[in-house]
């Protein structure tokens, strides 16, 4: 199944991927970063899945119910039409709710459609088949402290064998059916009544509509921004406020290839874009919670920042390889992320910019937070001259990446501004000013190519890097002519139609990769900020058209055929879309945010 054919549903705690053929091929339980019950997308034979489709040839159309993360799939066969509504139900006070619950409601729209379904849970990323037992006539797949029940109503006789629960039935016009998968973790199962499930589905739709209806964006590409906001909300881990980089792990950046990473963590890299998006879209609760989480999670290693944190704030797991075949044979399948141990200096700029945004929105900073932001600036003064692995987390030898230096400049610039406004202690401001000037000199002297008339990927190289566009977007104080010519160089060299590659040159990992979706949106925003608004708008139109049928983006896209690559849904892709659209709506041109 092409990655482009996947939609995602979620409940703020975990997400599920649902293919266009109705198969749930990814679901981690109980949380987004927990081991999976369904991982068929990574290994069709071992991963586990929940199949649900007509028994005869069909055509399929899909949409999200307006303003929700509830997916509606319509199957049309020669004999009739069936509709499946999928949701991970949200918590409510209406009844005793399961810890997690996947619901699949079926409606006979016209004629008669023979349906078949099969639930094949495989715990621990497909490593363990469950022990099947019956509770009150309901099959339950058990593994240690976890249990997943398969509750079906009007879905035909249920067969249970070899770790699989399956059935078939005819869905006639005007009839409906329901399959619910309540899940329990370290507690007794809740086996819901059908009426409770239906009420919970209704509540889920209403809750999503209420949330989406409260968003404040009314500018261009509104539909895309709205869907991006909803996709982003799926990646906000409700228990802590953290924002996951993506909902999945090890979906390949090239097929077949080894660029398969676990993105179910929260990257500091995404923080500024995320907070900016929350503020622009009118999500104060999410902004507030995310900033609290950032400051809390980064406390243990302060003033040093980790590149990424677990969603619950814990220490990231060590990277390991799972014995799965990988998506279309793209092994290794990795969980955990070795990038957690890297030095990435750009994170300090992103976090200080985030603090600056937060302070701008709230007008104040807690004493403890203010002290820590000032100490981060001190740390940047001491560390900026180090080589690092950069925003792209290269696994080659660390170098002096231009974007990292630009973000160090941004870090000190924001600290100086916060101190000027008396929001953080100002006793080290002279030191920050001096270091900011030094960094500026380094960038202008070492990281700009006179030959290419652009800021290059790293000091002394001639390679290009789309990430330097972030310098422009975050307000790095380069000469306007240099910033503009850099945008032009990236537009000319790294762009192929609407697609923009991350960089030219090596990164220490074998194989190629697709175009990076976020870079395309950064380029669009950069074009707008350097006065080429029409070109920017045209590129935005092209990029919005690149989303899949339900408006989602993965991390990368193959320019050759438009195939999705990498993990999905990808927060950075949707954040970059929101940033570009809202910036263009605000009519910005070259001013720092």
């Amino acid at each position: 199944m092409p990655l482009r054919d996947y939609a995602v549903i979620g409940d703020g705690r975990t997400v599920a991927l649902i293919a266009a053929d109705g198969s749930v091929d990814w679901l981690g339980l109980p949380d987004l970063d927990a081991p999976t019950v369904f991982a068929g997308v990574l290994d069709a034979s071992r991963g586990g899945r929940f199949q649900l489709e007509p028994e005869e040839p069909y055509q399929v159309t899909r949409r999200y119910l307006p303003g929700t993360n509830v997916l509606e799939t319509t199957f049309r066969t020669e004999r009739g039409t069936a509709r499946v509504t999928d949701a991970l139900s949200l918590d409510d006070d209406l009844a005793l709710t399961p810890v997690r619950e996947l619901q699949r409601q079926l409606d006979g729209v016209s004629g008669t459609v023979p349906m078949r379904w099969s639930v094949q849970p495989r715990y621990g990323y497909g490593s363990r088949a469950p022990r099947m037992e019956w509770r009150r006539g309901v099959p339950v797949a058990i593994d240690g402290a976890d249990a997943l029940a398969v509750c079906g109503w009007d879905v035909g006789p249920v067969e249970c064998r070899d770790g699989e629960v399956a059935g078939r039935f005819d869905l006639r016009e005007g009839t409906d059916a329901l399959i619910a998968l309540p899940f329990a973790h370290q507690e007794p199962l809740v086996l819901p009544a059908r009426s409770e499930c239906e009420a919970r589905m209704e509540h889920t739709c209403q809750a999503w509509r209420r949330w989406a209806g409260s968003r404040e964006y009314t500018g261009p590409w509104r539909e895309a921004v709205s869907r991006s906001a909803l996709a982003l909300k799926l990646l906000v881990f409700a228990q802590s406020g953290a924002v996951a980089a993506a909902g999945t792990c090890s979906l390949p950046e090239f097929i077949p290839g080894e660029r398969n990473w676990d993105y179910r963590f929260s990257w500091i890299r995404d923080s500024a874009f995320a907070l900016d998006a929350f503020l622009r879209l009118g999500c104060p609760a999410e902004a507030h919670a995310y900033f609290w989480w950032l400051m809390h999670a980064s406390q243990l290693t302060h003033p040093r920042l980790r590149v990424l944190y677990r969603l619950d704030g814990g220490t990231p797991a060590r990277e390991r390889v799972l014995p799965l075949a990988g998506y279309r044979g793209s092994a290794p399948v990795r969980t955990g992320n070795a990038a957690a141990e890297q030095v990435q200096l750009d994170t300090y700029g992103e976090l200080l910019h985030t603090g600056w945004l937060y302070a701008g929105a709230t007008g104040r900073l807690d004493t403890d937070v203010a002290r820590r932001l000032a100490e981060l600036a001190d740390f940047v003064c001491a560390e900026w001259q180090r080589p690092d692995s950069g925003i792209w987390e290269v696994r080659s030898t660390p170098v002096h990446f231009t974007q990292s230096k630009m973000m160090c400049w941004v870090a000190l610039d924001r600290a100086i501004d916060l101190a000027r406004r008396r929001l953080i202690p100002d006793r080290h401001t002279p030191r920050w000013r001096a270091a900011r000037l030094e960094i500026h000199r380094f960038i202008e002297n070492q990281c700009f190519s006179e030959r290419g008339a652009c800021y290059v990927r790293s000091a002394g190289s001639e390679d290009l890097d789309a990430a330097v566009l972030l310098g422009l977007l975050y307000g790095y104080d380069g000469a306007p002519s240099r910033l503009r010519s850099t945008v032009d160089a990236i537009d000319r060299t790294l762009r192929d139609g609407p697609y923009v590659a991350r960089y030219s040159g090596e990164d220490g990992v074998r194989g190629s990769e697709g175009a990076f979706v976020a870079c395309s949106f950064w380029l669009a925003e950069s074009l707008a900020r350097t006065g080429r608004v029409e070109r920017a708008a045209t590129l935005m139109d092209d990029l919005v058209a690149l989303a899949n049928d339900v408006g989602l983006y993965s991390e990368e896209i193959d320019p050759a055929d438009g195939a999705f690559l990498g993990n999905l849904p990808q927060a950075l892709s949707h954040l970059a879309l929101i940033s570009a659209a809202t910036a263009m709506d605000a009519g910005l041109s070259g001013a720092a945010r």
Partner: protein
Amino acid sequence: MNPAGIAAGGFIGTLVLTTALRAASALSLTRMDLPFLLGTAVTVDRTRAKALGYLMHFANGQIFAFVYYAVFLAIHHAGWWLGALFGLVHGLFAVTALVNTLLPLVHPRMGSPLTSAPDVALLEPPGFLMLNYGPSTPIVSVSAHIAYGALIGGFASLAG
């Protein structure tokens, strides 16, 4: 054993426990901050939360001290070692059930396994053994509670 001794032991014990946790936090051993967790149950203002949290924390210190006292009276025995044993049990209860399970259920701003979209929690849940707040958290927390218990037991026996 008299109430005044218990109250003094509870106060000193809480002082030591709080100082130990704060020092561990400053040494980057844990992100655990009991007063902050308690205070944010009543306000989102971080500074006010800490001030209120300390008051609540010391009140809790007294309440638990008198629970210890009730048990001492029931068994007609108190002492440093017995108090330390109670502190160990208390500490284990705190990291497994009290702060990890019960607090998220009553704390309006702390995430729990049931928190779902569109809500979003302001405080991350502690997790089993409070490990979300750092790998050293259970050791630090249990050790501090042992010291707290020992002081109450000791004061109870001294105030004979």
